[in-house]
């Protein structure tokens, strides 16, 4: 099996053929295809990474479900279209969480293969702040509605 370098990373012929077949989307997600560099880590680490990914996907799905529930079950709010804005914001956040989940999974997998530090991320803190701000806005809106 010949090995050769493509844009700095080394691939075997099998993997390059695989990349041609499943090219497009896969490359868009992860330019350095998994199973191409370094050594295969202990499967337990890979499965833990997979469970972390799934936990993030559930977080994203919960945000999406929250957005849908807002649109369908909230009464019209005092500010015009606020209900739809909250819904869309939650849906966008949910989609972002899902995309970031797969990106983080791929980077963690790659770090484990190369034996380097796991990727660090500010994303959980940013998400927490956004959710907290959203909660405060909702509390103010509800209080406004109750007191008005």
């Amino acid at each position, binding site marked *: 099996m010949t090995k050769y370098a493509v844009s700095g990373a080394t691939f075997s012929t099998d993997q390059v053929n695989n990349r041609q077949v499943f090219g497009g989307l*896969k490359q868009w997600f992860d330019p350095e295809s998994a199973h191409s560099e370094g050594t295969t880590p202990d499967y337990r680490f890979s499965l833990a990474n997979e*469970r972390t990914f799934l936990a993030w996907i559930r977080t994203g799905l919960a945000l999406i*479900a929250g957005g849908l529930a807002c649109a*369908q079950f909230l009464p019209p709010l005092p500010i015009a279209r606020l209900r*739809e804005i909250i*819904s869309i914001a939650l849906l966008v956040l949910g989609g972002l969480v899902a*995309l970031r989940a797969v990106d983080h999974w791929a980077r963690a997998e790659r770090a484990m293969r190369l034996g380097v530090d796991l990727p660090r991320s500010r994303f959980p803190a940013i998400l927490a702040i956004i959710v907290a701000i959203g909660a405060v806005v909702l509390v103010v809106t509800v209080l406004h509605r109750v007191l008005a």
Partner: protein
Amino acid sequence: MTRDPGAAPERTRLAWRRTGMSAAAVALLATRPAFSPGAGPAEWLVAAASMAGWAACAALALQRAPGLRVRPPRTAARTIRAYALITTALAVIGGLVVML
């Protein structure tokens, strides 16, 4: 190979299962407007798309399961990317539900 005392494959299989349940909740919420009295073809199409997304999620989880039963378990790559894509697609479908 001895049994993994940490039960990693079993926990991973259960993680897929509860993720599938979350996806079902999203798909059902997106389908709900199709059953309202004023529903038209747009609502039906969106409902069909969300159900298709949920079916794809279930199919991916089903496809993943055998790899977790063998010892040593196989790791996933394409299934994970596909799942993330479908979740994003569900968010887009949700956007259509809100806009309708």
